[in-house]
């Protein structure tokens, strides 16, 4: 509890919200996806996938930071979905996150949209 309060105070946390939209599960990830928070997202979404949701759209409009630990979790989830004939899509990447995606070659392996509307239309 103490640790959590401390992290909130210095703004180093992550929030996840999910909603069903068309045939996607839209997952809004806010804050930071780093070594401290990526395990939570990974666990949550592995359960979601195990529960039968195979089309995930990750909304990163409020994601401020992603580190290699976050990238690792996304690759793991993508592999899991691929083997289940599912799909992972991304939308609304902000500057620092887009930059890391570029360097890591994620633009050539993932479908990435400028906005949620663009993603729905595809």
């Amino acid at each position, binding site marked *: 509890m103490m*640790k959590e309060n*401390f*992290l909130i105070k*210095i703004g*180093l946390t992550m929030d996840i919200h999910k909603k069903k939209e068309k045939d996607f599960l839209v997952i809004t990830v806010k804050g930071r996806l*780093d*070594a*401290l928070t990526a395990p939570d997202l990974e666990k949550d979404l592995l359960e979601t996938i195990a529960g039968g949701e195979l089309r995930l759209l990750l909304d990163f409009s409020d994601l401020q*930071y992603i*580190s*290699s*630990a976050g*990238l*690792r979790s996304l*690759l*793991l989830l*993508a*592999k899991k979905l*691929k083997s289940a004939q599912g799909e992972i899509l991304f939308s609304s990447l902000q*500057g*620092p996150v887009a*930059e*890391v995606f570029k*360097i*890591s*070659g994620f633009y*050539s*392996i*993932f479908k990435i949209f400028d906005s949620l509307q663009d993603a729905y239309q595809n």
Partner: protein
Amino acid sequence: MPILAEIVLPAKLEHLPVFLKTLIQCARDQGFSAKRINDIELVVEEVLVNISNYAYPGKDGEVKVVCRMDQPGCLIIEILDSGFPFNPLDQEDPDVTADIGERKIGGLGVFLMKTLMDEVYYQRLEKKNILTLVVHNK
């Protein structure tokens, strides 16, 4: 070279925010751009996570981070541990063009470090791993 910050803490993941906050403050004070501050965060997180997870198998140990100003607009960040010898620069770069089936899930952190820092040096001295990052403001 003036020392801007020096922190020694147990090599545990829970201390990551303290190290990062301190370095972010140093970089901000030196007028670094938001982009370069983000780069520093990414790289230091990677190094500290590796140390927390692998440097001291089965025992406790410490990690020390020293931030110096080399010249205006240039920071030198030294990260030291007394754990298992490990040179991250020996790691092979991941194939960032491989498709999702063939992609390895690890290895991106060190690749980001090599890509984003201006210079990176590794030394093993007096049973210590010393990683030196040189970062210019851009």
